[in-house]
């Protein structure tokens, strides 16, 4: 009997107060982004981990450009034999994702035949292709950085915003154009390892220890931490709230050398947002609190995280894991293994999963944001980011002078802000999945990236039983065992709350969470497979990590003492916190 979690609470045709779109306003390839209908209950939906705070009206753009366009176009072009990409539905300000299946075996076969002519060449040329794409993205990026946003008039700003959106959309074409073949290759290699009897928990190690732009950023933060310490700023960092650090440092003559260094750092690494693909998020340039907050907590540690030692250790561990795996293979098997490994190291999916975030996920929404903020200024909006509470057609109308930014829109923005806050508060109790929960998910992308494996499905199904859960299981994502006080975080804004030696518990992590891995004892995520961000970074940093736990953020309470066994994939609540925590009721599954 299938377990069905009703979608009724989210069935509406209104996206936000005052907006019911015409379906011609955003491009899509197979299936548009829209709200839930009752018929959607037959499909399987999972809460998207990328936006734990919810999305503003303009933030919803990613669902159009990334999913409705990027994934679907890539899946059709490659093509991906069993699926046509991902589609999303709106639940309040949150979104749920589902894979779009290719319906017939015959069509899958034809798509697979087409892929034969595509994949090997793509993989062989991966270095070249990725370098070309990075160069392309960077050209556009340099264009937008060179824009003096104060100069153009409002219609010209609208035009720039359109251009920024085209860049955004193109960036996600590239994102999935690259991601699908790399993932296919990785999973092929994974399957071969299974066939050869290679311990699959070691596969992540075979591909680790390659430097990425994100790791480079983290190293720079580590260097700045040392500099702050050397300049005797430890005390200042310790006593100053993270949000006040920048103004305090700028005002302190003793900090001038550090401030100069930090500005240099920002100039290179500061164009990144505190979260993936969201126009609502400022970059570190706009608000350096996250970077400074990270340095603040790094300073609290007795010893600096030695990035070069960690990288060397990761490489040694890689060499050892490969040697151990090869020793159990016959010479014939070694030939296949070596070729597959070489292919996956050259077109390295886990590496790319981290690296591409620097070029794409963490920054390509910034030009649109800059345009929006400037438009907000010109139209005399009450708050600098009021325009991100407009939908794209509304924003374009305002910029083009077709529609005035009048009382009606101003009032709508106020209502939409309240709507956003209302759903932000509801996020911790949102069902992790909706619709018809399958017995098993067999789409490898959903399993490996989103962590929708049997642990996760069992956990969400068991949620209704009411039994007190003390032990949770998930994917053994990064080895090792650690104990600590749990910090249950709903989004990256709260990262500065976490103290060295504590256990990070969250829905999922994204690249902006990475620096925290230098200070936490362990990490537990509701979602995410062996290829999720937390799994990859956990391995790089040697932080015991368990992913795809399903309900960690509901079962574990902030302040609980927990033990995380990243080798076995088990999380145990040792001592429940005595502090009163408001009861959060899990979703109640209904059997049909």
């Amino acid at each position, binding site marked *: 009997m299938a377990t069905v979690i009703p979608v009724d609470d989210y069935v509406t045709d209104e996206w936000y107060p005052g907006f019911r779109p015409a379906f011609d306003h955003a491009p899509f390839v197979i299936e548009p982004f829209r709200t839930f209908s009752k018929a959607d209950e037959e499909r399987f939906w999972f809460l998207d981990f990328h936006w734990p705070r919810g999305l503003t009206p303009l933030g919803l753009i990613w669902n159009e450009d990334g999913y409705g366009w990027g994934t679907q176009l890539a899946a059709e072009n490659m093509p991906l034999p069993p699926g046509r990409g991902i589609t999303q539905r709106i639940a309040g300000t949150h979104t749920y994702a589902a894979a779009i299946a290719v319906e017939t075996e015959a069509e899958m076969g034809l798509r697979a035949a087409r*892929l034969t002519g595509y994949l090997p060449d793509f993989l062989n040329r991966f270095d070249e292709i990725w370098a070309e794409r990075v160069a392309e993205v960077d050209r556009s990026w340099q264009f937008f950085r060179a824009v003096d946003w104060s100069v153009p008039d409002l219609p010209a700003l609208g035009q720039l915003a359109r251009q920024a959106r085209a860049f955004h959309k193109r960036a996600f074409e590239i994102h999935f154009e690259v991601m699908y073949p790399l993932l*296919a*290759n990785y999973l092929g290699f994974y399957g071969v390892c299974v066939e050869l009897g290679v311990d699959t928990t070691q596969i992540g190690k075979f591909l680790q220890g390659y430097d990425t732009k994100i790791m480079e950023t983290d190293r720079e933060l580590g260097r700045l931490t040392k500099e702050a310490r050397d300049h005797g700023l430890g005390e200042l960092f310790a006593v100053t709230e993270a949000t006040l650090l920048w103004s305090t440092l700028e005002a302190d003559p003793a900090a001038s050398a550090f401030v100069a260094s930090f500005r240099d750092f920002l100039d290179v690494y500061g164009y990144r947002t505190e979260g993936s693909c969201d126009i609502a998020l400022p970059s570190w340039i706009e608000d350096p609190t996250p970077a400074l907050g990270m340095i603040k907590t790094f300073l609290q540690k007795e010893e600096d995280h030695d990035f070069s030692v960690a990288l060397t250790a990761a490489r040694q561990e890689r060499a050892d894991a490969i040697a151990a795996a090869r020793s159990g293979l016959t010479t014939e098997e070694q030939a296949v293994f070596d070729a597959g490994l070489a292919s996956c190291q050259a077109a390295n999916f886990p590496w790319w999963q981290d690296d591409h975030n620097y070029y794409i996920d963490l920054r390509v929404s910034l030009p649109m944001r800059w345009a929006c903020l400037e438009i907000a200024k010109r139209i005399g909006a009450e708050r600098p980011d009021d325009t991100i509470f407009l939908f794209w057609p509304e924003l374009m109308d305002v910029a083009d002078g077709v529609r005035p930014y009048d009382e009606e829109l101003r009032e709508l923005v106020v209502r939409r802000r309240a709507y956003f806050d209302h759903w932000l508060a509801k996020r911790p109790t949102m069902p992790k999945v909706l619709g018809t929960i399958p017995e098993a998910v067999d789409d490898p992308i959903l399993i490996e990236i989103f962590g929708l494996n049997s642990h996760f499905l069992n956990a969400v199904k068991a949620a209704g039983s009411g039994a007190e859960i003390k032990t949770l299981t998930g994917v053994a994502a990064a080895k090792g065992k650690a104990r600590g006080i749990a910090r249950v975080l709903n989004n990256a804004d709260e990262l500065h709350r976490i103290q060295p030696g504590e256990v990070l518990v969250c829905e999922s992590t994204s690249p902006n969470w990475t620096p925290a891995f230098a200070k936490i004892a362990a990490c537990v995520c509701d979602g995410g497979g062996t290829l999720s961000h937390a799994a990859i970074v956990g391995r790089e940093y040697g932080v015991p990590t368990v992913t795809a736990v399903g309900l960690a953020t509901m079962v574990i309470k902030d302040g609980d003492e927990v033990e995380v066994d990243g080798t076995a994939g088990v999380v145990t609540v040792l001592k429940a916190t005595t502090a009163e925590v408001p009861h959060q009721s899990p979703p109640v599954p209904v059997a049909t």
Partner: protein
Amino acid sequence: MTDLIAWMDQVAPDAALAVAGPKMGRLAELGQAGVRVPYSFAVTVDAFRAHCDEHGLAQKADDILSAVDAADSAAVEAAALRVQDVFLAAPLSEALRRGIVEAYDELSDRCVDLNAPVAVRSSATGEDSGAASFAGAFDTYLGVSGPDRVVDAVRRCWASLFTPRATAYRLQQGIDHRAMPMAVGVVELVHARSSGVAFSIHPVTGKRDRLVIEANWGWGEAVVQGLVTPDHVEVGKADRRVLRYDVADKRVVSAFDYAVGAVTEVAMPERLRERQVLDDDEVAQVVAAVLRIEEHYGYPVDVEWVVDRHRRSGEAVSIVQTRPVTVVAAPEPPKVWDPTAFAAKYAHGGGR
């Protein structure tokens, strides 16, 4: 007169299987091909036929079995046991008895022993032919010593042609018992430090790029009969490199009980249970023997091997049995890295 006794180091290789049955015949082939095998002789197929003719045993067996409904397993079992009684009651001719005793004394002399302990093994014609499988259906006696016991064991092996299991299987398959006359081997009992089986391909997956060795302390019976979880070793064929050596917790050992004069299964001494059975040199020698045997026959084989207590490093191990390995055809393992094929199989649902 036909030969009642044949020495395995003297029988013509091309006649060995016909004279001594498959189990002993192959031992003769191996020994003469240079593989280390124990001293042995066979009580020949002709000896069995002459014995049957003398007592009319084939007809008596037919008389008992023809009345039985092959589908009635209880009736088949009862009839088989009656045939066995008839066989056990038939005395050996003086000539045959004398032939066996003289050969046995000769074997003891070769071992520089008195009443040397031997293995008495059934070697029924066709017992491991491609079409039928009688593996383990017929008797083997390990550690028999003294002429009377040896003669008795030969007769028991003959009678084991009619174990309920073998009888039922023949009736189901429509195989005439006359088609599988039984030679019996009398084989020097190698004093085993360790023994086991080995396969020139992986017996479960069918992979041909490796050998699999299973090993236990003492004699091989506990391994052959599945009474113990043996050490499991896999070795790459191309470079003879040990791919894995899984040391098992071995709880049973087949040991020679001198008081009884037989190999018997007892609890493994605590200190030996989790100790690795084979060292690198022993593995290498088992591998060398298995590969040589496979090369000799030109098809995958399984063997039973024994490491003599007094074996020194570098010396060959003894092979006490070999036969064609019976495995199901395995899916062809991947030979080259083909990203499209593997993606199709593992990333895109083709493996479902």
